[in-house]
């Protein structure tokens, strides 16, 4: 069943695959983000209570869901690296961590900027905000561990264990607003049944969300490519590549 993936265990094959993937991802990300953001920020109707402040939703929600999504993919990579000892899985986890951390920080900062005028406070220690802050610290810990060891295999192992332990935080973030009473509102878009948003506000959100997800894909691809090169710098195929670039 997984036979088609076997060639990608080879760093060279995967490097060339990311090269082919990148222009497509970049073009699609630019397309979706430009349509989504222009639609969301200029043409979507203002909210009946919050007015234009609600537009921060179009950045905050994609950033927050991607911060969790990237963490889950990082955890899957960490599991593959621990069980099957795939070196490339480590490289991909190392490529994902800073991107996820950036999205977490964006979610926290945009949330605080919205919270001040709407709730009346920048920050409150409720379950949703606190667990998202813990996610940021988990990301920072994973990044630190990846860089703490000279031996990349050892670093990958240590960071992988932390990543897997931290996975417990993901359902806590997701369901914190249902399990406990919090100041943060419940989920708007991912509700079963129909979303609590009118359609002319929801469509631009879908474009923004796909756009930000593709943007994350582009940045992760770029970083993954660099990780592969850095970790294989003594291999002949990398040397040939560099010589071709210099010539």
């Amino acid at each position, binding site marked *: 069943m997984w036979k088609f993936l076997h060639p990608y265990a080879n760093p060279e094959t995967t490097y060339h695959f990311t090269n082919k993937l990148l222009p497509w991802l970049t073009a699609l990300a630019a397309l979706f983000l430009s349509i989504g953001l222009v639609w969301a920020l200029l043409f979507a*109707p*203002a*909210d*009946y*209570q*919050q007015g234009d402040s*609600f537009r921060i*939703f179009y950045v905050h929600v994609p950033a927050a869901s991607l911060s969790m999504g990237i963490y889950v993919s990082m955890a899957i990579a960490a*599991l593959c690296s*621990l*069980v*099957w000892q795939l070196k490339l899985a480590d490289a991909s986890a190392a490529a994902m961590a800073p991107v996820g951390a950036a999205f977490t920080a964006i979610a926290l900062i945009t949330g605080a900027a919205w919270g001040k*005028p*709407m*709730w*009346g*406070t920048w920050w*409150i*220690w*409720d*379950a949703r905000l606190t667990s998202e802050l813990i996610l940021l610290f988990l990301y920072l810990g994973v990044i630190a561990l990846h860089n703490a060891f000279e031996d990349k295999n050892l670093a990958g192992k240590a960071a992988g264990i932390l990543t*897997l*332990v931290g*996975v*417990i935080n993901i359902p*806590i973030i997701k369901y914190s607003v249902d*399990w*406990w*009473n*919090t*100041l943060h*509102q*419940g*989920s*708007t878009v991912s*509700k079963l049944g129909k979303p*609590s*948003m*009118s359609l*002319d*506000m929801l469509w631009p959100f879908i474009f923004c969300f796909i756009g930000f997800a593709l943007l994350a894909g582009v940045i992760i691809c770029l970083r993954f490519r660099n990780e592969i090169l850095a970790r294989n710098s003594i291999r002949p195929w990398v040397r040939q590549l560099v010589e071709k670039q210099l010539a």
Partner: protein
Amino acid sequence: MNPRRKKRLAIVATILIGLGVVSGFVLYALSQNIDLFFTPSEITQGKKDTGLKPSIGQRIRIGGLVVPGSVKRDPESLKVSFKLSDMTMPIVFNDSDPMVTVYYEGILPDLFREGQGIVANGTLTEHPPTGLSIEASEVLAKHDENYMPAELAEAAGQKHEKAGYSAKQLENK
């Protein structure tokens, strides 16, 4: 899968399941403390499963819906009082619902409306005419997860005007 990988997978899975169970128990044990606020019915009748009740003089947070028609504002100052009742879906207000009065002096957040969710932070006191009440030092608006354009909201009969302040009310601030 070869036996070494199987063994590693088993170790990782056992540790993860163990950690999951442990954190599940910890969160369950702490569940009363992770709640951000008490609801009005929890203040008057105690928490549902433990019967835990805040005592008079205790500093707590309360969260509930502002009962329509209960907001009383002093025309001369920023003093305001309003009643809170439990957040229920669908939203209905009955006179028999448990209610707690909140007394506050200060500017209310933009989203403060009648029928809107509020979280207030203050001391629980007993006021003779109104019963249990909160002397609040901070009032935060709790926004719900519904977003809609103004035309739709008007069609659905939602009120959305802000509370304004007169110059006289603001001058003693």
